């Protein structure tokens, strides 16, 4: 085995190298999940409790008090939970990933491994929480005896993929920027809060009367991801256009984030 260490010149994705370090994905994810619920009394139950409580609060305020129209007779808890399920991957995955490089600075400065593993495994942690939250979703569907169409088996994975690609793209981009400009530490929670209202979690896309707002919303990939999941429980036709644009946007974000990260990662150890 012969290789060279030299000044950075060409950009490579280094997928082969990532594969060699595949066990590290597992260990970082495992560490983060373990640490997250260490010394908590309820442990992993928190992963279920958090989205459940949110769903209850949203149902009380937006479903019962404000009567948000869901343009179908779907119970509001199911409606909002379909949104929360994917949204939570995005929001917690993005928060974790963006801060991951800075919080692992100690390791980055002392040892080499493909840096991409760090933000990626912090997104995997969010996926673990998603699996927990999915149990509540299934429970909810059973509780309301709400029929689900078979297409969920296709729509949910695609929605999930769009979510992961989006989270990964923005997450790696912010992680890299955060190493250099610590301002992003303050931008991220703020950004997530704004995006929450720009994403149809609490309301359906159709509630937006103005067509240009709808058009802007299309470029929010999370809108398409949530639309996909809802389409399989709402029994309404799928907004193909929205989903297609979302899918493309998520790919663009994914590639942009990946490349920016790859381009800057060599200097993380000097800056972190």
């Amino acid at each position: 085995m012969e290789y060279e260490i030299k000044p950075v010149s060409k950009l490579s994705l280094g997928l082969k190298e990532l594969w060699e370090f595949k066990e590290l994905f597992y260990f970082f994810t495992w560490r983060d999940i373990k640490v997250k619920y260490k010394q908590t009394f309820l442990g992993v139950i928190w992963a279920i409790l958090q989205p459940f409580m949110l769903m209850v609060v949203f149902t009380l305020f937006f479903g019962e008090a404000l009567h948000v129209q869901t343009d179908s007779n779907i119970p509001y808890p199911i409606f909002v939970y379909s949104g929360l399920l994917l949204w939570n991957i995005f929001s917690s995955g993005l928060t974790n990933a963006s801060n991951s490089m800075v919080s692992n600075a100690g390791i980055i400065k002392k040892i080499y491994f493909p840096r991409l593993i760090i933000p990626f495994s912090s997104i995997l942690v969010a996926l673990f929480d998603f699996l927990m939250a999915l149990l509540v979703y299934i429970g909810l569907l059973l509780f309301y005896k709400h029929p689900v169409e078979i297409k969920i088996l296709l729509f949910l994975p695609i929605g999930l993929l769009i979510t992961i690609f989006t989270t990964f793209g923005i997450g790696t981009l912010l992680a890299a920027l955060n190493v250099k400009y610590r301002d992003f530490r303050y931008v991220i929670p703020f950004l997530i809060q704004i995006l929450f209202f720009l994403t149809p979690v609490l309301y359906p896309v159709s509630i937006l009367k103005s067509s240009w707002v709808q058009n802007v919303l299309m470029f929010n990939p999370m809108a398409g991801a949530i639309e996909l999941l809802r389409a399989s429980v709402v029994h309404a036709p799928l907004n193909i256009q929205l989903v297609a644009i979302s899918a493309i946007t998520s790919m663009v974000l994914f590639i942009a984030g990946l490349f920016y990260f790859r381009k800057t990662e060599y200097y993380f150890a000097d800056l972190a």
Partner: protein
Amino acid sequence: MKPILEIKNISKKFRIRHEHQAYLSLRDSISGLFSAPFSRNSKEVEDYWALKDVSFDVYPGDSIGIIGKNGAGKSTLLKILSKITPPTEGRIISRGRIASLLEVGTGFHQELSGRENIFLNGSILGMKRKEILNKFDEIVDFSGVEKFLDTPLKHYSSGMQLRLAFAVAAFLDPEILVIDEVLAVGDAEFQKKCLGKMEEVVGHGRTILFVSHQMGSLVQLCKKGILLQHGKLKMQDDINKVVNQYLNNEDSKKASKLSLEKEAIKPDDNQIIFVENTDVNGIGRVEFNHDEQIIVDCALSLNNYNPNLEFAISLYDRMKRRIFTIHEPLHKHRQNNLAKFKIVLPANFLTPGNYSWLMCITHPGINYTEIKDDVCHFQIIDNGSVFSKYEGADYGCVFVDYKVIPN
């Protein structure tokens, strides 16, 4: 034989920004406009070459000690070798798997148990899960913390954490091992154990690059040495020669006596005011013949006196080996809150070489203050001892006054 590592013209440049903020931030550029509109040039960026044009080859089985003062570029070189940071210029061709140990316990997490940390740390260091499983018992054995394996790391003492960390690292199995000063911590017994383990590694034909400030362990572990000075390769030779060159260079700059300005004497504290190595005539000297007495002239101020106070002074050789310690009760010498005395070292006692003192004022069992390390250097010159024909060889620190009785 092809070198396992070819380091070719490696340079590394850092940008030093002369400003106060620790981090870059967007605000800096904005606030800079308002706070200092006329001094924009003060934010100069200076290039600093941590390494400049360093080249050398490493052959399989080599054990190379990298020596240099702080800031000479040692750590930067190791970071480049371990791919943590890229070189600005030059290249390195490597023909083996490099594992680096720039810190013990990289990635240790305080909330995880000892067992979990073994797996995490091992994996970060580049071991496969299976490898760790195979060596798990040995690792635990070496660390000696088997009782606490399932206790969170935060409840470990720092010594235990270090043992565990080193145990994991000791079972790394790369072709090339890069080690930064990781042994500086830990108790003497464990250090010895680690050195033993590392010697074993070298013995197995593994290639090692080792940075340390402890010349003793460098000489013990390495065969070759590299001396870095201001980022440049100054010398590459047998480890003993490199160490000698480095130490001679260092020693020449060191002060031979310790003395405190009158104004610096505090009215409420115990301080070492003056210490000097003198000859029998009381004249300060840096060089002594081996058959000469050395008189250590000491003066202390005792403005926070207490009858239990002692003056402790230890002699070190250039390898930082402690040779002996003297504890002198101070109540015997106290006069007007001053203590003045002379310590007389016998002639024909120390072997030729360079020595330095470590001293402090101690309240035994309670505390110690005023530690002065690496002070009052002096040199012993062989003035025709029985060992003079072995000049340059290491035959110990002291001449011993022994008898041989016919049997």
